[in-house]
């Protein structure tokens, strides 16, 4: 259980100066709070431990950067928000050999960045405003359940929209010349194993 005095600035200062017990206390008290937060925020049970671990690592590695020890909460908030952005980008969930979020292919089949963005933009323009909005909400980190609530509809209806939008985008991007890389990504994965 976390107690106010265990995020006390004095403990932060001691942790910053290398006192292991204080550091362990800070991180140990932060852990259940982070667990409650990530469960509430993501509903993702399989990634929760990794989210917590990575956030604690960020806090641990960045302790010396805290200028004002009384702002530990805000510092922990920053670390948690950074980690959530990694989750929303798909860093946690995609199988590594098919998808590297650190170096994602741009709209596949296109070598030039600007051309790739234009192609994706053209493809997205072909969607209905609602479908595009749903994809953007998904990309921003909203779950289907949350998107349904925002748009005052059902989760099934939202997923159907996404499925249709994806099928349309697949068709459009194949015609433009995109997704050629997808076959090659498959080949790379097979060739590498």
């Amino acid at each position, binding site marked *: *259980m*976390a*107690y*106010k005095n265990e995020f006390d600035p004095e403990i932060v200062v001691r942790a910053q100066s290398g006192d*292991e017990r204080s550091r362990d206390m800070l991180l140990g008290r932060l852990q259940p*709070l982070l667990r*409650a*937060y990530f469960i*509430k*925020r993501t509903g*993702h049970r*399989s990634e929760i431990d*990794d989210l917590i*671990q990575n956030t604690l*690592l960020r806090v641990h*590695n960045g302790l010396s950067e805290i*200028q004002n020890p009384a702002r530990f909460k*805000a*510092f922990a908030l*920053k670390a948690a*928000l950074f980690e959530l*952005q990694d989750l929303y*980008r*798909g860093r946690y*969930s*995609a*199988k590594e*050999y*098919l*998808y*590297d979020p650190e*170096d*994602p*292919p*741009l*709209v596949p*089949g296109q*070598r030039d*960045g600007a051309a*790739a*963005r234009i192609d*994706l933009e053209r493809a997205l323009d072909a969607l209905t405003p609602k479908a595009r909005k749903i994809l*953007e909400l998904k*990309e*921003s980190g*909203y779950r*289907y359940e949350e998107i349904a609530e925002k748009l005052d509809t059902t989760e099934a209806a939202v*997923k159907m929209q*996404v499925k249709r939008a*994806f099928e349309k985008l*697949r068709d459009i*991007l194949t015609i433009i010349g995109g997704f*050629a*890389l*997808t076959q*090659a*990504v*498959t080949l*790379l994965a097979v*060739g590498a194993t």
Partner: protein
Amino acid sequence: MKDWIDYIISYDESGSDARRELHAVMDKDPAVRATFAQWMSLRAGLDAHVRSTVSTRELLVAYVMEQDGFGDVLSPRERKQLDVVRPDIERALKSETLIRTIVQRIREDAAVFEDVWEETIERAEESAPVDRPRMGLLTAGHYRWIWRAAAVFILGAFLMMVFLLYQRDAHVETFMTDAGESAVIELADGSTVRLYENSSLSYQPADSPARFNRFARLEGRAFFDVVPGEVHFYVETETAVVTVLGTQFAVAAEEEETSVVLARGSVSLAHRTQPGVQVMLQPGQRSIVRGTHPPTAPENVELSEELLWTDLFVFRSEPLERIARRLSRHYDVVIEVPPQLAQERVTGTFEQNRAVEETLRTIAATLGATVRHDGARRYRFETRQ
């Protein structure tokens, strides 16, 4: 018949059972695998669209924190980077719905954090012990019982630890290689380990309890390809512990030194006797544990050079002209790259004992290019007409 597209578009919200089911289908069905890759490519394209405005999403978080009164917790580096991209962010907020939506989500995430923090603190304060009037000092007899209870607890905890370690080590299998030998070992969870010469790997067989089958002990050198799982994967050497968060990495473990190079994903590394002092590696980085010292700070390395001993070519966003030079040396062939392809970047892992033509054709396919075989030991990349 299942419509796997439903599973694919819900992949990031699925539990581990549903993901395993999809992975099993993808391993057998190239069409489903291709569809999955297309979905991930689309998501990557949208992410790239965001990063064309601001190089990392962390800077959007930094922007929101600054705007909402938390600017003092940004590091000097974050503030400097934010200063550079702030005009782009502000421009994008006016014109790009995706950026506005991400910023809105960040604010909602922050609000929930505040709520959870306050709830947790309040609950803790409510259950904090209330000051009661002292009933009197504890007697010597009370203290004797307290010490006895503590001793029993410590002994019990020690015995439990011994029991768990016994359980973990009781069914260990060990695989050893001699000089000039190498082997690929598949672990119970589907991860693979490429073990090199004069090395040994101890691991849990398939029938050991699940909580122990993501653990291995290494002496020598190995390249790990770890499948993501619910439980972390641990690699222990004489000096270090590597905690794996799902990925590809190489470990070279000698008696007094363990070196870890990360190709993909993320790992954390600590000295075996100081697990709380960890470094986290990003792809393309190396850290070393020597003697009794904690891990060195992560340093960027040239992956393909660093991992030559693995019999693998590991390229991470490397320009084609550099890859061509490396492959030329290894295969003793000439590989020409036209200027328009020279700086194209490739990411992938290839076995060194594959035929050169097969490797070149795979790389060419990723770039939408072709390879021409111009004679016995001469190849040339060409753009598609």
